[in-house]
């Protein structure tokens, strides 16, 4: 089966810093790949390269067997690559529901004419967008918050809203950057449940950057370990736990959590 995502010798430097240094990996359909590594290892940069917010210096990215290295970010999103951001990027002044409908509507169109004159096409698509929003809000524990400005939600709910927004584009591949950041152990346990549900229900392939070992070890099929822009190793959670290089570079003296 073709991999959902195939990254081939990807390189990116900023000035003198080699942020990503010839990374290659594949993600087969339905898999969850965890990416771990110390601060500044280049994890987020990999996401920004895949979604084309940064232009790679060299290397190739294939999505569903097709090279997408030269596509603009919004085209990648329409093809089915959804993402969240390490530092939340919600539309804070928009309502919770609008954050979600905007994502759905970007791929489900009606013309300006249909919008101005409120044609049937307009009503049908808008109705679906709102249904989508309510389904996703229910699913992610945001029911009843549809009319609240996104910026007014507590932090944990903002994280879940960002996930809901990414899911509203109906992605095949979801890139999640540190979903557990700033969460307590209880919230992390809920998050693990949610992510499992999300994946099953939407038939997703996931790549997740995460520092919280409990979370990433629990949910990933494979884990890729990065340091100084390079791939140190890739293996199952059990293999990664045992690897001496990983313990040295990342897990430190304490060992895996």
């Amino acid at each position, binding site marked *: 089966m073709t991999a959902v995502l195939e990254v081939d010798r990807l390189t990116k430097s900023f000035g003198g810093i080699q942020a990503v240094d010839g990374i290659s990996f594949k993600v087969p359909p339905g898999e969850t790949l965890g990416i771990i590594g110390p601060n500044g290892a280049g994890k987020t940069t990999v996401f920004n390269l895949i979604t084309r*917010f940064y232009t790679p210096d060299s290397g190739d990215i294939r999505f569903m067997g097709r090279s997408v290295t030269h596509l603009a970010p919004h085209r990648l999103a329409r093809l089915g690559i959804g993402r969240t*951001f390490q530092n939340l*990027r919600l*539309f804070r002044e928009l309502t919770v529901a609008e954050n979600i409908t905007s994502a759905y509507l970007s791929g489900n169109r009606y013309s*300006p004419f249909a919008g*101005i004159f409120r044609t049937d096409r307009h009503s049908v698509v808008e109705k679906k967008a709102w249904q989508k929003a309510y389904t996703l809000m229910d699913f992610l524990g945001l029911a009843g918050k549809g009319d609240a400005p996104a910026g007014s939600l507590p932090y944990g709910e903002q994280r879940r809203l960002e996930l809901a927004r990414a899911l509203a584009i109906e992605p095949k591949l979801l890139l999640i950057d540190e979903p557990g950041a700033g969460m307590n152990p209880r919230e992390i346990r809920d998050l693990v449940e949610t992510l499992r549900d999300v994946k099953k229900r939407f038939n997703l392939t996931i790549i997740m950057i995460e520092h919280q070992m409990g979370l990433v070890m629990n949910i990933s099929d494979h884990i890729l370990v990065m340091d100084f822009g390079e791939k140190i190793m890739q293996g199952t959670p059990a293999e990664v736990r045992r690897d001496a290089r990983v313990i040295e570079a990342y897990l430190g003296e304490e060992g895996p959590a």
Partner: protein
Amino acid sequence: MRFFLESKRHILLALVIYAALRLLFSLGIVSEYIEQVVIYVFIVILAATGLNVIYGYTGQFSLGHAAFYGIGAYTSAYLAKTSGLESIFFFPATILAGGLMAALVAYVIGIPILRLRDDFLGIATLGFGILVRVFFDNSDRISEVLGGSRGFTGIVKLTNLETAFFVTVFLLLVTRNLITSRYGLFWRCIKEDETASASIGINTARMKLMAFVYGCFLAGVAGALYAHLYTFLHPSNFDFLRSIDFLIIVILGGMGNIAGTIYAGFIWVGFIEGLRIALPGNILDLRWVFIPLLLIALMMWRPYGLMTKKKG
């Protein structure tokens, strides 16, 4: 049609306002000067709504809005004059031509400059505004009719209460529907975060251009109505200060608030014209002291507009 059904309440309200104004005008209670000011208010509201789409909703800072207003004014006046179609019958076509010409120019310059952000975009649009002003000043070299720095004279008066009012109301309803459609939603997303917008599949460059072109179209239509109201155009009517006027109305009414722009249009024009009447001739120029002072006060106490207390 659903467009009119959904806007029932607004259309009804508009008809009541129109009937009241028509009565006031017909009974000769108000002077011709006041009539002209009232009609002018609707024109200003239309142009300012265009800027609200560009800046208030989409967050694209423009200091050159008056240039598009001027392009609409000169285009429609020129067309009417040179084609001999100076009748109320062809007026809709000349108005539309003014709007479309402004939209076309916005499209052509929008492609390169809308990539710029914030202050840089402000400076680019400011530069464009100056360029257009210089063009109007020298327009007599292209065609004697345009009048250059002496001004464009002898335009037929075709704009009356009916044309200005109903064109403005119709386009405000169109704008309201656009704003509440997916396009308006994308504009608001872009204003908040372009990166996040792209990540959910919004073609940000295209949507920004669309907002800019549409907003300038409204300015062009407003300009066309203006030309046939005052029957005389001068390059100084479309300079930087006029752009600032529109900006003040948008900010006064609250960014991204159509109703606010309507109120603010009345307040602003009323204020300027009111001072003209209230102040004795020898200190009339004091207006240019009051207005900046008012602006400073506004920025200090109500930076998000008179209508909205909070950022919105």
